[in-house]
């Protein structure tokens, strides 16, 4: 490469121009300073449709460096369209190393799951967020919800949980379950299953949330309290599964239901593919793995 193209390549590292990254980094810093607060930012058009994670991609593009190792998951899986496309995008525009192993990654961009393997200090988890406002479907006016956040008027959030119990006998919200961050802001943890909410609490990793269409960034710094809202007589609890993963036999993990045929056949497998593969490599087997358990 000659000097000319070299310069251009550096200027365009990770797709966004440096002024845009600077603007996004300032928003991220503000978001980290006020955990759970939604910071507005000037979201850019990205070369992918809204809903594909344009917010998460902008956040990742702003924090990624040449020596970072990137992992991208979609519903826990490394091999689905969204994850593959975004991983290929960053390989192309930033030429960074990519991985599917949670422990090896420094930045993990995720759509709707937190890896089963506990994250460590120094890792950054970037969420793709479709609707950042937890009060949106209860109070449609943005002016009003901002005021409610400012004045810490969160009674309405419990109205939603009340409705759940009144209609279903228990809190039936299973994803985007509202949390209170560091005792102050109520936050939508993006549509992650509530199974993952406890992993956000006192996490060692930095958690960044980017909503591209809604133009908001928010964050949970490491070692921050993240409490799921509940009632005294209906405490928060996570989903449980009746059977272990059909491939690796894992029990305390989040499972996906996979339909096998049109006669009611189905299997439950780990949503976190990396975790499932690691367990199988260690010799764990489920009843449909087609191999004998290692002895």
């Amino acid at each position, binding site marked *: 490469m000659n000097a000319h193209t070299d310069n251009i390549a550096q200027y365009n590292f990770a797709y966004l121009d440096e002024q845009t990254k600077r603007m996004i980094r300032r928003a991220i810093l503000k978001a980290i300073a006020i955990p759970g607060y939604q910071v507005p930012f000037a979201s850019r058009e990205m070369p992918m449709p809204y809903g594909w994670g344009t917010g998460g991609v902008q956040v990742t593009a702003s924090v990624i460096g040449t020596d970072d190792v990137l992992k991208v998951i979609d519903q826990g899986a490394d091999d689905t369209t969204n994850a593959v496309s975004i991983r290929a995008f960053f390989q192309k525009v930033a030429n960074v190393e990519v991985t599917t192993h949670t422990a090896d990654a420094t930045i993990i961009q995720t759509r709707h799951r937190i890896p089963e393997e506990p994250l460590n200090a120094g890792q950054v988890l970037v969420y793709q967020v479709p609707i950042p406002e937890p009060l949106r479907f209860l109070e449609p006016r943005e002016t009003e919800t901002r005021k409610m956040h400012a004045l810490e008027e969160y*009674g309405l959030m419990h109205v939603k949980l009340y409705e759940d119990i*009144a209609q279903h006998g228990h809190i039936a919200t299973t994803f985007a379950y509202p949390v209170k961050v560091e005792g102050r802001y109520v936050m939508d943890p993006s549509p992650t299953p509530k199974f993952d909410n406890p992993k956000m609490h006192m996490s060692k990793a930095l958690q960044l949330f980017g909503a591209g269409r809604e133009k908001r960034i928010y964050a949970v710094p490491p070692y921050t309290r993240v409490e799921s809202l509940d009632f005294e007589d209906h405490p928060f609890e996570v989903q449980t599964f009746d059977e272990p993963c059909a491939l690796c036999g894992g029990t305390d993990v989040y499972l996906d239901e996979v339909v096998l045929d049109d006669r009611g056949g189905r299997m439950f497998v780990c949503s976190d593919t990396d975790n499932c593969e690691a367990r199988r490599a260690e010799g764990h087997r489920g009843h449909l793995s087609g191999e004998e358990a290692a002895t």
Partner: protein
Amino acid sequence: MTDEPLLRVRSISKFYGNRIGCNDISFDLWPGEVLAVVGESGSGKTTLLNCLSTRLLPTSGTVSYRMRDGAFHDLYRMSEAERRFLMRTDWGFVHQNPSDGLRMTVSAGANVGERLMAVGQRHYGDIRATATDWLGRVEISSDRIDDQPRAFSGGMRQRLQIARNLVTGPRLVFMDEPTGGLDVSVQARLLDLLRGLVHELGLSAIVVTHDLAVARLLSHRMIVMKDGHVVESGLTDRVLDDPQAPYTQLLVSSILQV
């Protein structure tokens, strides 16, 4: 009864540009007293009510409210957070159209419970018990607790709105045409219920209405407004039986007799 008023209104004016909303209105509201504001439409009744209930910033004048600690506070010098807290604990606001005051997409029980949750109640069983109790007090049967207000009739919605407002035990309730849009027999029932509740709870209330019969039934004292000015005020029975101002005489004589 204490010898101090609950609400002290001094020279409240609201101008919309050159147009007068209401002009130079002063009065005191005493604990346990129901004050009716009557007048034809466009006379500034609702503007006045909104100015008093902090929903509309008056052009000039002061409104001070005696808090539970006995001290008077100027409503427009409080922080917005304090005003909003007052609005959902110590005050109630009953809208003419129940869908303005209710959350139409959540159940009746949640509508009543919202204020409780807003002030920090976090026990589902207690909230539900209180909601059931209040639905009973406004004559809504307890098996409708999980229905949305959309499934309720106009009269039921209005009663639900009243329950939603009274659940935190407010001391002052603002009502904007509480019986407007209801048919006569439902009106009568609602008035009867309101009168009972006001008496039982010792509420103070300011009721805006164009219906003199509502004023007669509910209120102790009334203010008659015309073109943004107060033309007459006094005890309800006195004003209705012996109107002094020409406009009040006209108003009283224009009630239809059957």
